């Protein structure tokens, strides 16, 4: 266990504190044009015509682009091809874009955009996913024949029979809300058409490869014609996957059509209107218990609001399915999770990815269960939670890594002082301060990376230069989390060289093989594993070439302290070694790929919901101590603690930083964040009305890292981005219940002021 206050280091910090770091909107090119999207005022409508003539005559306007101008296929999607780069048949959500105005200046484009008009006739609309899932409901995409995007199941044991033998059965309903990512940098992309026929894209995104795929699809050109370069990103949190790809593809489209560089920078209001959100879930949860304190059965039905487009709804809801009972052993499970289209804003990837909703429900259900049984809420968790060798609800045996759930639970209880503090829980009676007071916890396990969602593999390249410097890159994207620094530190450790030798080359989609998206807390585990494999390959090459010089068998060469050393005491400095490689006509260059093996590491049966959902897991526990002012209903977070098993903390200050930030986002999710969406229209379109936690609304957090080296990762390290977010809302929910004596079963939890 480590608690670190060491001086922090990351490779991009100096650029970011001096203002030198260039984000997408900071790029300018000679002759650059500005692009502005055009929205309608409809939520669900048929499009008859789009009128652009008047706008096209405005000063500075170079071109107005509609769907008919798209040279390739205007329809794309990572899973289901249902997203139109520009709407031409229907408006399916408030944020649909019908045209792009391209002008010499942004001001001119904004003026002209007001004059683009559409002839629309209203269509019915549907906003409740449960209603939308029914037969006969208005269809958002008639060609699909249903609004149901996907239906995931778990069929383990015999839940129906098991409920008959239970002593206590709980039946509860929960509702969660849309959550906006609220990255401080709105989406932006600049596309520069090169004289070599390649369009280079400088954009704010976390999945450059999907930006390339989407752009190539829309342009009808090969992937090799599009080069998406890595630049600093002002926050992603899952939100700069598909949405950012749409922005990049639109910029690329305008650049190809005008043959000039084009910049598309979103205003905050456009970003919030159009970008996908976290899925709202309606959850029906039935739990059966026996008097001995065991959970015997769960029946779970979820309607997830996918909004107008599929995006990654099937993957988000897959995680909810695999983790539908939280970190508890339940022998009989019947689970149905539906992703459903509505005319609401679409939903997709958001840090947590289907787990924050489930954890919010499960961690309240276990406390209700303990209460119904008359048991201590911690002892109930301890009795039912997964342990070394336990079997998950999808029949995966947890035996390939250390199951540390009780370790993180015990640490969090101690750090927050749970047993002492809970004596002061007020359960609805004001304390001496005239406040309600409560302490609560929540814990989880989380499958690492993509799991059985899809192919999961990542590339790394190490290119040692003849002057001793080293260039590395990976298929993982720097979203602000510090991935590049983690890769540099890993390469330095495994090559036995000083970190100062290593420069991280900002990858482009033309230099590094497509390694998928940087989401799912997969950056560290996939990227550092690939770096370790590439470093191992490079060392094998150098040992083979230089063993004669060192007078020892290649396998005996040791790489440490900037030297290659033989057991006989002979050694070469790193500088000497790479120079000798030059004269041997050998490039010290290695590429390798870390692969999650299909069917061996991960597997899944859609009908039964059985399989190894994820190749390894992480464990976390968070606690919240709150006070509620009865007059205002305001929830004050007094203290919060978090303990997470990260396998190995590669760069501890930034592991802690991830946890701090995740807790803040989780607190916002639990207590304040709300789009104010009604009939498909979002009323809180900027950060004034859409509240996220401010510095004076949060305490210092008590963060503890647990490091159980994970043999499934080549570096031992796992991930932390999402586990950090997914526990604060349920911990606060439990604290609120302990403070007020009431359960708040919908998000955000707003406590009504007392009169």
């Amino acid at each position, binding site marked *: 266990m480590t608690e670190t206050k060491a*001086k*922090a*280091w*990351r490779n*991009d*910090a*100096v*650029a*970011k*504190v*001096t*203002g*030198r*770091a*260039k*984000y997408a*909107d*900071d790029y*300018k090119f000679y002759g650059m044009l500005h692009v502005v999207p055009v929205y309608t005022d409809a939520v669900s409508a048929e499009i008859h015509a789009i009128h652009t003539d008047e706008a096209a005559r405005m000063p500075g306007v170079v071109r107005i682009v509609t769907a008919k101008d798209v040279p390739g296929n205007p329809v794309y999607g990572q899973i289901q091809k249902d997203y139109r780069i520009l709407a031409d048949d229907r408006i399916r959500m408030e944020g649909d874009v019908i045209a792009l105005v391209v002008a010499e200046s942004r001001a001119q484009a904004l003026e002209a955009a007001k004059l683009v008009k559409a002839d629309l006739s209203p269509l019915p609309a549907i906003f409740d996913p449960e209603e939308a899932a029914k037969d006969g409901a208005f269809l958002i995409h008639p060609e699909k024949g249903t609004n149901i995007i996907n239906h995931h199941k778990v069929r383990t044991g015999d839940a129906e029979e098991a409920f008959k033998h239970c002593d206590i059965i709980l039946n509860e309903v929960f509702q969660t809300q849309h959550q906006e*990512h*609220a*990255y*401080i*940098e*709105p989406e932006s992309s600049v596309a520069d058409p090169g004289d070599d026929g390649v369009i280079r894209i400088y954009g704010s995104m976390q999945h450059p490869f999907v930006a390339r795929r989407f752009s190539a699809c829309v342009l009808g050109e090969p992937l090799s014609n599009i080069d998406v370069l890595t630049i*600093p*990103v*002002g*926050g*992603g*949190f899952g939100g700069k996957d598909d949405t950012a790809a749409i922005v990049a593809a639109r910029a690329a489209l305008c650049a190809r059509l005008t043959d000039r560089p084009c910049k598309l920078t979103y*205003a*905050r209001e456009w970003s919030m209107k159009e970008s996908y959100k976290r899925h709202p879930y309606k959850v029906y949860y039935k739990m059966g218990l026996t008097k001995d304190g065991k959970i015997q059965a769960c029946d779970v039905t979820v309607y997830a609001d996918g909004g107008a487009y599929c995006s990654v709804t099937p993957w988000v809801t897959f995680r909810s399915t695999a983790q539908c009972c939280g970190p508890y052993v339940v022998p009989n499970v019947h689970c149905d999770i539906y992703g459903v289209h509505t005319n609401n804003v679409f939903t997709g990837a958001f840090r947590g990815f289907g787990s924050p909703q489930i954890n919010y429900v499960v961690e309240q259900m276990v406390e209700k269960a303990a209460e119904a049984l008359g048991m201590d809420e911690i002892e109930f968790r301890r009795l039912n939670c997964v342990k070394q060798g336990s079997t998950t609800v999808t029949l995966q045996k947890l035996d390939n890594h250390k199951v540390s759930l009780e370790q993180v639970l015990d640490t969090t209880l101690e750090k927050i002082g749970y047993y002492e503090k809970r004596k002061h829980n007020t359960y609805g009676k004001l304390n001496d301060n005239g406040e309600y007071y409560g302490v609560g916890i929540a814990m989880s396990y989380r499958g690492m990376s993509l799991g059985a969602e899809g192919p999961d593999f990542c590339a790394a390249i190490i290119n040692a230069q003849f002057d001793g410097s080293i260039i590395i890159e990976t298929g993982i994207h720097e*979203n*602000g*989390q*510090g991935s590049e620094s983690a890769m540099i530190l890993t390469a330095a450790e495994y090559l036995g060289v000083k970190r100062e030798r290593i420069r991280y080359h900002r990858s482009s989609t033309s230099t590094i093989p497509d390694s998928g998206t940087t989401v799912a807390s997969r950056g560290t585990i996939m990227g550092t594993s690939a770096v370790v494999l590439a470093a191992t390959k490079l060392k094998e090459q150098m040992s083979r070439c230089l063993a004669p010089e060192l007078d020892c068998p290649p396998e005996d060469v040791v790489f440490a302290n900037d030297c290659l050393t033989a057991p006989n005491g002979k050694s070469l400095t790193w500088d000497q070694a790479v120079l000798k490689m030059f004269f041997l006509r050998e490039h010290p260059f290695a590429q390798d790929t870390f692969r999650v093996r299909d069917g061996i590491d991960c597997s899944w049966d859609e009908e039964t919901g059985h399989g190894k959902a994820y190749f390894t897991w992480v464990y976390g526990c968070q606690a919240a101590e709150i006070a509620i002012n009865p007059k205002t209903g305001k929830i004050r977070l007094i203290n919060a603690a978090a303990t997470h098993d990260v396998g190995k903390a590669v760069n501890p*200050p*930034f592991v*802690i*930083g991830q*946890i*701090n*930030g*995740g*807790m*803040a*986002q989780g607190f916002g999710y639990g207590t304040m964040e709300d789009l104010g969406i009604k009939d498909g229209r979002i009323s809180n379109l*900027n*950060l*004034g009305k859409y509240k*996220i*936690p*401010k*510095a*004076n*609304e*949060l305490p*210092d*957090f008590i963060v503890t890292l647990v490091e159980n080296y994970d043999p499934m990762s080549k570096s031992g390290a796992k991930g932390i981005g999402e586990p950090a977010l997914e526990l604060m809302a349920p911990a606060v929910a439990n604290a609120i219940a302990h403070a007020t004596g009431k359960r708040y079963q919908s998000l955000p939890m707003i406590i009504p002021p007392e009169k």
Partner: protein
Amino acid sequence: MEITVNGTKHIVDDSRQDDELLNWLREDLNLTGTKNGCHVGICGACVVLIDGKPMRACRRLLKHADGKEVTTIEGLKGKDGALHPLQQAFVDCGAVQCGYCIPGMIMSGHALLLQNHHPSRDEIRKAISNNLCRCTGYVQIVDAIESAGNAYDENA
């Protein structure tokens, strides 16, 4: 109009009185360190100092800066080309993640430390309460501002 930015005087035509300061800094002076996050004066990514006071450049017009001294993140410098001590503190405390809020955050922190070299953590949290950060949960940012106070004593 005469506007001084980071020590350099700029003569600006009076016809531009009602132009927005943020846009002018970014587009005319290429000082892109000052960021646009919300454009309505909420997020604080565009905070600059005008005569030492933290101001949102997206809510200020050029006439508001006429005859005044504007300091942006590019104007914050340490001795002999080193980082300014507050910038160095942000690096050392691990206060930087995506970095987009950081220029505004540093300018708000700098304005506070100019007035009060040793603020309490609560005072720091209050001073940056109009600078939104979505990555860090603010803890390490507060650490950074707190730890830089001694350098302000030395420069006083």
